[in-house]
């Protein structure tokens, strides 16, 4: 909502200056977002100085002038005036400006082969006088070079953000009322021009009685024999200040009344109305051309204003071309109606129309302002355009039910924390236009018709504290006390995973929850695509089904920027359905490039599956899972390389699925056209990590460290090629957990001396007892047992 201070002062008597007014508006919830110098088109004409004027090389009567606007730039202007000379201060019009007299728009031009940017002006060209001999000579204006010659004619525009509840402040008068209430002055009485009303309104008006009728009341006035014309300057300037274009007196007056009183009006050319006005609901498919020159196809049930033959307007939204007023319009019908916000909103949304009237009606217009709107507008039309007005005809409901709210005064303190006296509350509410009756501890408050937002006592409390001032509320220091945990188990996991991965060299990223369906389907396992009905762009059209969708898009972008040794992770939702809760938190990591790229000391190698396996495994351990409970197997999914990926499960291969890790499937790498094709990743599913069942804080497991010597034994087993080394390790470990402390495979060999379907696996076993140093005999016994058990369970032989 735009207002100017002088306009405001037509309703508000105040001594406050502009700064004070702006400050107070913001304090009472009418936030001034912007103050704009409202300069008209004449501001472009600048005071300038001719530094040098020389004869044009190709024309005797022309001069080439170097013109300065006081900065370091020199503007070259070709000028025909005889008085153009060195040092003259005059008025300069730049390219793009329009010369007031000729309405000619200036362009950069070559005049007889010399470029000229803009022109130097005579008084007549600027409509200052008839003096056209030579350019203007300004005396004593040397200091003002560079400034606009014309003082700003329009007032500053204050752009106020009106919250959706304050329909009443979509008019200057409403804002003035609020300011007056807050103590900034007093609200002036509305000025009305008097006029005679001897005619009867000759056009019949009816509102159909049907379900969902959007029009409650339709006020009208017939004005005949007017002379429509350009608006007088005072009115034009107001329309300009709003950022609108003046059209004609009749249209400008209806707009003016809307912005002044928040009372939308519409003027029909009465001669173009076929007999009568019928306000009804539209039929499906009816057509209508709006004043915006758009053709609309209507749906069933929109509120339309029609005559005997066609639709004249969408009630409260937009008028139509058929009955629009022109300069030659002689007779008009002025409409001042009340349309239901819900009806207006529905029509506006379905047809995607936004007008100033629609904006106001959907927020709620004062239903009792119908007559006042007609009075003010008719008075103005008659005073500017002449003519003769009819009596007002008000069709439909004429009065609204009065709303009364009881406010117990102590409730203010209960909610706000400070008290207010009955008399202060009375004063504030009365000044806002509420009719208030005092009792000892309560107020009986009648809500004015222009405040549809006020419906219960808290609304009144808000009015009171808003005007009293939020700065009066006293701070209550928060109590430093905690009764509940800040984070729950899952939230702790989220937090820990972030730090765990960042400490492994991964950079955290946050990407959209939506992604490109073409990429997303590469990573899905056939779950249904989750489309966004109104995506912001076609490459952000689905909710992601995999954490890799965006990670891979962004990895590629970084590679394309010339970076390739990259590790990114994201922890966020992935979706498996479109219902609330069809989502889970996934920790996703992606990694590409080399280890030891261009190193003077170490050999470079590709990132491989064991890098991501290690990252996933170590992260799970850091999340609190004992490593011995992590089971790795080669179960995988389609987005990974089938031979270079696996899963991690809890407690057994069939336990809760904690993670996938592996190389990205080569087909995906090809499809996305990665520069560096060596790409690995992992996904950890936090929801599958069970919360430890601890009622009381657990101590750590007992500390057991043997003081007796430890021994190591190496074994080389020849075993089936397909047998998983991880299983072999676990198998050996289980043989005697009291003595076998650590089992680790340190070499895998296939080739010469080993049968084709076998491999040789070298395993190091650490042995140590708690109660004694193991003797050679003990060690031999354990070793023998290891060899026997492995042979029995796997068919492996010891390599000789």
């Amino acid at each position, binding site marked *: 909502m735009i207002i100017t201070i002088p306009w405001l002062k037509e309703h508000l008597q105040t001594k406050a200056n502009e700064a004070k007014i702006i400050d107070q508006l*913001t*304090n009472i*919830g009418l*936030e001034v977002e912007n103050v704009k110098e409202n300069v008209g088109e004449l501001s472009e004409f600048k005071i300038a100085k001719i530094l040098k004027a020389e004869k044009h090389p190709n024309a005797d009567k022309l001069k080439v002038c170097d013109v300065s606007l006081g900065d370091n730039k020199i503007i070259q202007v070709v000028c025909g005036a005889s008085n153009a000379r060195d040092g003259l201060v005059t008025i300069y019009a730049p390219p793009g400006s329009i010369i007031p007299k000729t309405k000619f728009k200036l362009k950069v031009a070559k005049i007889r082969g010399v470029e000229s940017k803009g022109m130097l002006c005579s008084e007549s060209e600027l409509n200052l006088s008839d003096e056209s001999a030579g350019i203007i000579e300004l005396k004593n204006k040397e200091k003002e070079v560079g400034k606009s010659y014309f003082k700003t004619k329009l007032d500053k525009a204050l752009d106020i953000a009106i919250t959706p509840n304050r329909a009443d402040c979509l008019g200057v008068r409403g804002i003035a009322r609020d300011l007056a209430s807050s103590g900034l002055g007093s609200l002036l009485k509305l000025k009305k021009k008097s006029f005679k009303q001897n005619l009867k309104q000759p056009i019949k008006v009816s509102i159909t009685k049907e379900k969902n009728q959007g029009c409650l009341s339709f006020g009208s006035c017939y004005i005949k024999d007017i002379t429509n014309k350009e608006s007088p300057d005072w009115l034009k300037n107001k329309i300009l200040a709003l950022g609108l274009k003046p059209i004609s007196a009749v249209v400008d007056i209806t707009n003016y009344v809307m912005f002044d009183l928040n009372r939308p009006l519409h003027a029909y050319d009465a001669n173009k109305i076929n007999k009568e006005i019928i306000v009804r609901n539209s039929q499906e498919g009816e057509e209508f051309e709006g004043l915006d020159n758009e053709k609309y196809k209507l749906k069933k049930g929109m509120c339309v204003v029609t005559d005997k033959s066609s639709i004249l307007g969408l009630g409260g939204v937009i008028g139509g071309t058929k009955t629009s007023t022109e300069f030659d319009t002689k007779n008009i019908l002025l409409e001042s109606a009340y349309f239901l916000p819900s009806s207006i*909103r529905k029509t506006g949304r379905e047809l995607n129309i936004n007008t100033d009237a629609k904006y106001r009606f*959907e*927020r709620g217009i004062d239903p009792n302002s119908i007559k006042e709107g007609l009075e003010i507008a008719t008075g103005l039309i008659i005073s500017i355009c002449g003519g003769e007005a009819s009596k007002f005809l008000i069709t439909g409901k004429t009065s609204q039910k009065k709303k009364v709210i009881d406010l117990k005064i102590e409730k203010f*303190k209960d*909610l*706000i*924390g400070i008290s207010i006296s009955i008399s202060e509350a009375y004063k504030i509410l009365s000044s806002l236009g509420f009719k208030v009756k005092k009792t000892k501890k309560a107020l009986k408050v009648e809500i004015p018709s222009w405040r549809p937002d006020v419906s219960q006592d*808290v*609304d009144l*409390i*808000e009015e009171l*504290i808003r005007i009293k001032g*939020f700065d009066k*509320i006293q701070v*209550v*220091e*928060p*109590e*430093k*006390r*905690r009764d*509940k*945990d*800040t*984070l*729950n188990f899952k939230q702790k996991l989220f937090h820990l995973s*972030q*730090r765990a*991965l*960042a*400490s492994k*060299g*991964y*950079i*955290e*990223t*946050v990407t959209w*929850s*939506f992604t490109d369906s073409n990429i997303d389907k590469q990573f899905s396992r056939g779950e249904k695509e989750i489309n*966004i*009905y*109104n*995506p*912001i762009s076609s490459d952000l059209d689905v909710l992601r089904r995999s954490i890799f969708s965006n990670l891979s898009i962004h990895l590629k972008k*970084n590679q394309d920027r010339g970076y390739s*040794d*990259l590790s*990114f992770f994201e922890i*966020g939702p992935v*979706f498996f359905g*479109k*219902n*609330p809760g069809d*989502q889970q938190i996934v920790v996703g990591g992606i990694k590409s490039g080399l280890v030891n790229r261009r190193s*003077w*000391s170490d050999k470079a190698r590709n990132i491989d599956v064991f890098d991501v396996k290690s990252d996933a495994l170590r992260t799970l351990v850091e999340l609190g899972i004992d490593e011995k409970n992590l089971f790795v197997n080669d179960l995988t999914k389609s987005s990974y390389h089938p031979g270079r990926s696996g899963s991690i499960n809890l407690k057994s291969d069939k336990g809760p699925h904690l993670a996938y890790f592996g190389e990205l499937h080569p087909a995906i790498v090809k499809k996305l056209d990665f520069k560096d094709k060596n790409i690995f990743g992992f996904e950890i599913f936090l929801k599958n990590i069970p919360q430890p069942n601890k009622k009381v804080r657990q101590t750590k497991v007992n500390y057991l460290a043997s003081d007796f010597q430890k021994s190591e034994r190496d074994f080389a087993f020849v075993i089936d090629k397909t047998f998983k080394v991880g299983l072999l390790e676990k198998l050996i470990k289980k043989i005697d957990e009291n003595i076998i402390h650590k089992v680790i495979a340190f070499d895998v060999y296939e080739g010469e001396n080993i049968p084709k379907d076998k491999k040789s696996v070298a395993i190091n076993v650490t042995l140590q007892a708690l109660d004694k140093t193991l003797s050679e005999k003990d060690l031999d016994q354990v070793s023998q047992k290891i060899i026997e058990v492995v042979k029995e369970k796997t068919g492996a032989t010891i390599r000789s």
Partner: protein
Amino acid sequence: MSDLEKINSIFNAKIDSVKSKDDLQNLKTEFFGKNGQITIQFKNLGSLSAEDKKEFASHLNRLKDSLSKQIEEKNLELETQEINEKLKSEKIDVTLPIRSYRQGKIHPVSQVIDEISSIFSEIGFSVAEGPDVETEHNNFTALNTPEDHPARDMHDTFYLDKNKKLLLRTHTSPVQIRTMLNEKPPFKIIVPGRTYRSDSDQTHAPMFHQLEGLHIDKNITMGHLKGCLDYFIKEFFEVKNVRMRFRPSHFPFTEPSAEVDIGYRLENNKIVIGEGDKWLEVLGCGMVHPNVLKNVKVDTNKYQGYAFGIGIDRLAMLKYGINDLRAFFETDYRWLSHFGFDPLDVPTNYRGLSK
């Protein structure tokens, strides 16, 4: 000159010319070997009279000790020399680069969420969450924003279905509804999370982060709201004094509603939060509307309280001098490396929020 004096002077002459361990070994053999000069003297002892023997033996032993000691010293000297030479040859250029490593980082949004959680933890708030996909009911209707309410226009909503019943939550407020429906008062929660609006330009991203706060209990007033936010802003920006302004505003789910501005000034084109003469809008808040409480069956005669909503990304931008919101979500390696946080930089109340 006695024999012993002679031996001594020969030894002295020779030991000075010893240059290597081999030389030293030769010298040792010459004097202490089987037929060494000192060995011979000991062999001769037997032929001396008892009287002479005692005196001579004493001289001889002294000489032996002295020569042995000199050999020992020479040996040490040679060894030291040898080590020094070896070390000299082993010198490498320590200015060569270190082994390459990948530096992990925490995203500024995550860092700021941790900071916020740490601050609110101190005054007893717990972190709550909710789904990103919401019903139109939880996102709007239950929050006192019925279908024809103009406030819905301010939320450019992403929908998942034609009937506009399922949507991506436009704010974290629906978690208020979920929490209050599922639990019993009092409620004291913060809700950091992803939120979505179909709006995209320099200052708007289709996804951003919000922090919701909700405190419902007996006798909670707007004074508590002011106190809570005043505490939070000071802690978050790590300044002692911040000018704060509560400005009346409107949200359908609070009444009264306010927007909060904080003071700042510009220093070298950077925003300094605190006591400057300019105002910056940082959050919206208010007393939870009785209609909202009724919608979730909270007894409004017993309970009331406040709620607030803050843009997390914007807080991060202000605190850490980040200009472009969209860059948060573009995964540019350079940007994340620059604005990201070290993983060990965990915000805590005892060590401080930031380094």
